[in-house]
């Protein structure tokens, strides 16, 4: 866009170079009247408010002399460099036309000063200023108007058409007051200040006499209702001046016009011939252009178009590029004004908007632009104001209004003291001045006006504006001194392009700005970049805007800048965030990961520096944290380390916290949380330890027959499953809970993380802070604890850390992506439950006393001798604040329930009676432990013997003599197999078939095989204590487990046993082989008065006297056992024998009382013969016989154990009487008497054919023996040789079979007697007869 013939006409920058670009200019400002609004004197509190109110009066409608309504626009500025004023000929909208001062004074001195400043401002802009207003704010509200010199005289006397017609109230009042005050004050400021003394006369202020301005006085806090009115009045007056100028210009004769010059052109035309045709044309063109400007300002936009066009045509012909450019620009501006009327109206709206962020203009005008200009202005104020004007006569042909003004001014000043530029300006427009006509007032129309039909002919198309502007800019670029104009033109063009929504055009205009080489102060350069950034932003070139902002920021603090401003730098950088696709919110940045990391890192680092340098360490820390957090993946390991160290250094000045920082501009910097330092790779809440974990008191009722089923009925359950992060376990109120996390320190140095807590929501949760030191690069497991304080749902959101001097709230949902965590963990917290301590004491032994703390599955070790019992006391202390209202004891072990209940004995009622247990109270549970064991040693003897435990093999026994070889001959043979199996065999030696048929016989003795009594057996059992209390006692309970390791030591063992008939038939002896398995001497009590000492590991045989098992009881029992057995008795003798055996065994067990006492360690215990097995023969002894015997020899009754002596050959009469004690008759009894010799070596000789002679039957069959009936049989016997004889008397019944065959009883009699014997009763002990010679 730059002209290739750059700078052809340019000179070295001269004094008149306009050097203060106004970046805020818009195209529509071409049509505006420029008014300076300035606060002077003390700072007004409501200055900004007033400024806004004034700005709102930016457009008034004036009816001109021809009755046409003119739209007049005003542009208010707060500051205006005088140099720019000099370009007023070139572009009239650059002229400052009006002045408004807002001033505050407290006393006369200040008032004088304020007036002086106002006047000096008027002087400063005297070249162009047409009118001014002064708003004075005094100390008191409702103050009287101070006396004032009648400034209106000077102003309006000359106008003299309207003096009395002034519609303004204060104007009217002025003269009246003036009369009062004139007498007292014709004074100068100094004198007045001395005269006026506050206390008395504080309401009487006088303006100095040389103050000739239209002034309005108010109290400082007055509402000032007529502010707008006054401003409008000012504008109205300005309009008429402009209008008059326009008319004047339009009536000038084109041949005689003078040449208008841009400030720097003056030298160029020295010595040129002005009378050439070219030169004349140039003058004409310039004048036309000037007229067009005025026309535009006067509100006649369409007219201005044609003027611009014609001037452009003229100027083009004479190659006056600068002015041609101006004409083109004017054309563009006018077209833009018509095409985009909203441009005009939108601007004031933007200015008034209170949203600072959205309104770039306001922010700039108030915060940036103003301070940057101020120092510069001060610098410039000293320059003589009138120098350019005094130099004006240099061009004699110049007849511009300005010059004429100045000339007139000087002349006027000489004439009258109160000469004023304003008055002069108005004086030249007398004919058209009509103050009454402002706004809607009617006026006599002045017939001299431009044709009313609008000439739109020259209106540019929207598409043509940009190329036209471009051409203009190219023309401008040919003049180095017009650089500012070019710059401004670029901005204006860009703004139009923005309005046209043509971003590319806008950007090309903006790009052009860069190439314009201007000697600017740093501040102006910054401002240029800033404006560029604003416009780039508007067209959506955010990156470009960010680039410009960053450039501006670096300029702010560049070494060339005499007064670096880090704060501005900081804000510029901050505002370039969107262009770098950065957000202030770190989570957003992490999630989206857009933008160029290298640039973002650079920007952030610069931002950190800027915020540190501007003295805001908190921000520095925050941004450094942000940098580390968001750019973590893009940084190298070394950078991680460096930045972390930097962060540490920064945070030493100001700690970073997870709170948003609010900047002065109202921007909020959200907190940045370090989740990368340390990195969390694992985060799970832990269930309570088993001892404190709540359990359901009643387990869920299974409504489904399957233990597991994948099918779930009902959608509720399925939904619950989907709830991610919902924990299955429960936490308990007021109970310490734990979350486990695994942290890794990614930095190469040791990292201290202090004050780690859990972040929760929902119910109140008290987190316990934790401090840890993490070694570099090794995962560390950390447990965080806390206590829920309420009941309900607890959400665990994350954790907070304090590391590198920064406090962070690391929320799970914001965790870096590689680790997937649910957004929160939800845990149900139930009401508090009691906790207990369990203390166990085992009394008798005293040596075991384990005190167990609350939760550890504590162990109590107890060793007991078999048969020993001891008391165990469990003391439960309630350590919580909740009373225990439910307590339940259960024992779990590897034993079956029956055995278990024998070892552990406790009273449930006793436990329940102690409830409830108040806090800090104690309850005692007594448990009796008994070393239950089977004392019968079955496994000890192995081998061949079928009856290992019956004493038969080793000891003589009259009953237990079922020798194998005697099987066939013995009548007991029928029941032989059965007895042998049930009494002698160890279950694992029994055949499978046996077990299958008769399994119930061995069921009760199952533990026998489990616990061999000969060595110590460990019994592991758990005492489960379930307890609860508080509000949730119905649902939940706690469970403590107490491990009890019981060692059961062998004490005594019964290796063999047998039964012997006692001397009295109602008694028997149970003969036991007792082995002392302990290492001590043992005192073994086996009967109330009998005891024996057994050495360690020694074995002893003891007879235990017992009553025989009463027949009735057995029978009754048999009946009780069930009708099945009694019924089956007829068919299956085996089962009946079994039940009988059970009865007998039980009888023996119950009646035997064995006690032992260890002499040395003073331990006593008991033993039992439980589980003793009996053979059929034994049972016969044990049981009271159903048949009562009475045996007599030679009519002499034989006592048991008695030996009868006789000589050989003697005839003995043996009488046997049998009573039936059964309550039913016995049938088919076979009573037999048999003689034999016992060799006492286990051999019985029945072959006594030649030694014994018997007379009478030795075998009788009794058909029926009725109940309680007696049968007597007698036979005679003669022993032929001396010796020891024994008589075996027995009675056998064949009843069952006989009953089957009642009809052939005769035939079967013998058979039954010899063969199928179902039961045999013997007379025990057998009668012994010793025969002597």
């Amino acid at each position, binding site marked *: 866009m730059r002209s290739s013939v750059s700078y052809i006409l340019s000179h070295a920058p001269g004094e008149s170079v306009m050097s203060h670009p106004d970046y805020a200019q818009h195209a529509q400002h071409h049509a505006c009247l420029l008014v300076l609004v300035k606060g002077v004197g003390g700072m007004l509190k409501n200055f900004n408010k007033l400024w806004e109110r004034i700005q709102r009066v930016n457009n008034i409608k004036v009816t001109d002399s021809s009755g046409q309504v003119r739209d007049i626009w005003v542009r208010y500025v707060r500051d205006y460099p005088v140099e720019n004023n000099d370009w007023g000929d070139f572009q009239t909208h650059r002229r400052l036309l009006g002045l408004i001062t807002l001033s505050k004074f407290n006393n006369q001195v200040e008032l004088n000063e304020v007036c002086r400043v106002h006047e000096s401002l008027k002087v400063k802009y005297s070249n162009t200023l047409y009118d001014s207003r002064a708003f004075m704010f005094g100390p008191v509200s409702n103050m009287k108007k101070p006396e004032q010199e009648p400034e209106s005289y000077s102003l309006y006397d000359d106008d003299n058409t309207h003096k009395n017609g002034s519609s303004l109230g204060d104007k009217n009042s002025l003269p009246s007051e003036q009369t009062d005050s004139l007498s007292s004050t014709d004074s100068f400021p100094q004198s007045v200040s001395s005269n006026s003394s506050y206390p008395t006369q504080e309401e009487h202020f006088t303006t100095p006499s040389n103050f000739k301005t239209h002034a309005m006085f108010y109290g400082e806090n007055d509402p000032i209702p007529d502010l707008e009115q006054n401003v409008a009045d000012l504008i109205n007056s300005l309009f008429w001046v402009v209008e008059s100028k326009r008319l004047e210009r339009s009536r000038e004769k084109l041949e005689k016009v003078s040449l208008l010059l841009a400030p720097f052109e003056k030298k160029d035309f020295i010595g040129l011939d002005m009378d050439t045709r070219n030169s004349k044309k140039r003058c004409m063109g310039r004048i036309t252009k000037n007229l067009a400007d005025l026309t535009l300002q006067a509100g006649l936009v369409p007219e201005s178009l044609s003027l611009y066009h014609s001037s452009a045509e003229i100027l083009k012909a004479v190659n006056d590029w600068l002015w041609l450019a101006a004409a083109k620009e004017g054309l563009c501006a006018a077209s833009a004004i018509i095409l985009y009327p909203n441009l005009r109206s939108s601007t004031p709206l933007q200015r008034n908007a209170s949203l600072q962020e959205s309104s770039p203009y306001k922010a700039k005008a108030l915060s940036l632009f103003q301070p940057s200009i101020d120092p510069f202005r001060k610098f410039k104020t000293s320059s003589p104001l009138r120098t350019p004007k005094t130099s004006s006569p240099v061009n004699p042909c110049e007849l511009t209004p300005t010059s004429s003004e100045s000339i007139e001014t000087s002349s006027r000043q000489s004439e009258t003291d109160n000469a004023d530029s304003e008055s002069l300006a108005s004086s030249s427009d007398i004919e058209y001045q009509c103050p009454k006509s402002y706004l809607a007032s009617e006026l006599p129309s002045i017939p001299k006006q431009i044709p009313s039909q609008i000439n739109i002919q020259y209106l540019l198309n929207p598409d043509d504006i940009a190329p036209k502007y471009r051409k203009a800019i190219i023309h401008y670029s040919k003049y180095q001194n017009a650089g500012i104009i070019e710059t401004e033109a670029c901005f204006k063009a860009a703004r139009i392009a923005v309005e046209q929504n043509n*971003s590319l055009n806008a*950007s090309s205009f903006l790009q052009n700005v860069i190439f314009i080489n201007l000697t600017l102060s740093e501040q102006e350069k910054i401002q240029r970049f800033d404006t560029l950034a604003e416009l780039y932003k508007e*067209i959506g070139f955010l*990156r*470009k805007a960010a680039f410009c902002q960053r450039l501006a920021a670096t300029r702010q603090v560049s070494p060339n800048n005499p007064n670096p401003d880090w704060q501005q730098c900081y804000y510029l950088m901050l505002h370039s965030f969107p262009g770098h696709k950065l957000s202030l919110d770190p989570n957003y940045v992490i999630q989206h990961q857009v933008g160029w990391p*290298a640039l973002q890192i650079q920007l952030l680092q610069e931002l950190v520096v800027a915020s540190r340098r501007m003295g805001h360490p908190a921000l520095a820390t925050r941004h450094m944290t942000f940098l580390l957090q968001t750019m973590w993946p893009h940084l190298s390991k070394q950078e991680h380390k460096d930045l972390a160290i930097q962060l540490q250094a920064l945070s030493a000045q100001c700690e970073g916290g997870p709170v948003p920082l609010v900047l002065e501009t109202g921007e909020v910097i959200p907190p940045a949380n370090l989740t990368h330092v340390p990195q969390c790779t694992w985060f799970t809440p832990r269930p309570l330890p088993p001892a404190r974990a709540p359990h359901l008191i009643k387990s869920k009722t299974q409504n489904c027959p399957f233990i597991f089923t994948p099918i779930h009925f009902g959608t509720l359950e399925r939904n619950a499953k989907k709830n991610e992060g919902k924990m299955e376990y429960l936490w308990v109120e007021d109970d310490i809970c734990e979350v486990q996390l695994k942290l890794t320190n990614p930095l190469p140095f040791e990292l201290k993380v202090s004050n780690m807590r859990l972040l929760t929501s929902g119910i109140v949760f008290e987190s316990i802070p934790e401090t840890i030191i993490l070694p570099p690069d090794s995962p560390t497991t950390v447990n965080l604890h806390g206590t829920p304080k309420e009941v309900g749902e607890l959400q665990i959101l994350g954790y907070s850390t304090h590391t590198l001097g920064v406090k962070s709230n690391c929320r799970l949902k914001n965790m870096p992506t590689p680790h997937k965590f649910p957004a929160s963990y939800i845990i149900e917290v139930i009401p508090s439950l009691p906790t207990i301590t369990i203390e166990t004491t085992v009394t008798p032994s005293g040596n075991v006393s384990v005190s167990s703390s609350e939760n550890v599955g504590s162990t109590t070790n107890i060793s007991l001798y078999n048969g020993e019992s001891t008391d165990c006391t469990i003391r439960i202390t309630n350590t919580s604040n909740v009373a225990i209202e439910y307590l339940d004891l259960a024992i779990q072990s590897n034993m079956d329930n029956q055995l278990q209940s024998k070892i552990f004995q406790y009273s449930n009622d006793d436990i329940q009676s102690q409830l409830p247990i108040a806090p800090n109270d104690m309850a005692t549970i007594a448990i009796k432990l008994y070393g239950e064991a089977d004392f019968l040693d079955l496994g000890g003897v192995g081998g061949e013997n079928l009856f290992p435990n019956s004493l038969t093999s080793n000891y003589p026994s009259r009953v237990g003599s079922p020798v194998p070889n005697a099987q066939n001959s013995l009548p007991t043979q029928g029941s032989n197999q059965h007895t042998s199996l049930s009494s002698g065999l160890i279950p694992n030696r029994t055949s499978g078939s046996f077990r299958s048929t008769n399994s119930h016989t061995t069921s009760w003795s199952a533990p026998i095989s489990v616990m061999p009594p000969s060595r110590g057996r460990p019994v592991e059992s758990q005492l489960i204590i379930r307890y609860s209390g508080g509000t949730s006692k119905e649902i939940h309970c706690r469970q403590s487990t107490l491990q009890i390791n019981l060692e059961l030591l062998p004490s005594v063992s019964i290796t063999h046993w047998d039964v012997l008939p006692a001397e009295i038939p109602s008694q028997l002896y149970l003969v036991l082989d007792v082995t002392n398995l302990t290492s001590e001497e043992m005192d073994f009590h086996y009967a109330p008065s009998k005891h024996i000492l057994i050495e360690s590991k020694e074995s002893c045989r003891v007879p235990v006297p017992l009553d025989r098992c009463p027949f009735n009881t057995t029978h009754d029992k048999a009946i009780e056992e069930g009708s099945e057995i009694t019924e089956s008795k007829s068919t299956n003798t085996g089962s009946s024998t079994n039940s009988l055996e059970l009865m007998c065994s039980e009888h023996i067990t119950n009646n035997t009382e064995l006690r032992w006492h260890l002499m040395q360690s003073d331990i006593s215990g008991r033993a039992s013969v439980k589980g003793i097995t009996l053979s059929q023969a034994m049972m016969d002894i044990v049981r009271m016989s159903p048949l009562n015997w009475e045996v007599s020899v030679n009519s002499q009754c034989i006592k048991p154990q008695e030996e009868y002596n006789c000589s050989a050959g003697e005839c003995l009469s043996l009488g046997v009487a049998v009573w039936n004690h059964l309550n039913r008759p016995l049938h088919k009894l076979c009573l037999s008497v048999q003689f034999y010799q016992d060799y006492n070596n286990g051999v019985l000789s029945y072959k006594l054919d030649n030694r014994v002679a018997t007379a009478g039957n030795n075998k009788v069959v009794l058909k029926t023996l009725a109940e309680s009936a007696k049968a007597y049989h007698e036979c005679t016997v003669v022993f032929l040789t001396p010796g020891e004889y024994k008589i075996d008397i027995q009675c056998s019944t064949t009843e069952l079979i006989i009953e089957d065959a009642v009809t052939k009883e005769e035939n079967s009699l013998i058979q039954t007697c010899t063969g199928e014997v179902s039961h045999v009763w013997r007379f025990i002990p057998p009668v012994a007869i010793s025969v002597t010679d």
Partner: protein
Amino acid sequence: MAVCVAVIGKDNSPLYIGGVGNDTSTDNELSRQWLVHTALDALEERLATTNSNNTATNTNTSRTDLRDLYLGLLYSTDTHKIYGYVTNTRIKLVLVTSSTSPSGSNIRDAEVRTALRRLHALYADAICNPFHLPGEQITSQKFDKQVKNIMLNNV
């Protein structure tokens, strides 16, 4: 001729930035990134306008528009000129020439065009690598070498 070549992905993420400079210091690298980054605005805007033009005009012109992938000069600074090129898959190729160097100052548009076409071909070759994940940064050394060749040889 060129001082920097950049390949920019569909989502405006940098895929490759290579440059020949006097030094390879980070400053140089950063300034290159700034240059290319700020060019993206203009590039996108130009894409958007051609698109809207395409929809507005008839299909005939749109076809020709589509065929021309070369976008021309995006913008220029005091020292550099930045040219753009967009593939049909919206991969942006940016070429930066230095206007201060004698070779780069008076470079012709056609030269840039051919250079960018060649770059396009190289890019296509590079992503034909089955091990290359589209959207990832281009780390191919061969590509780097060839691009540097384009930048240097084509003086």
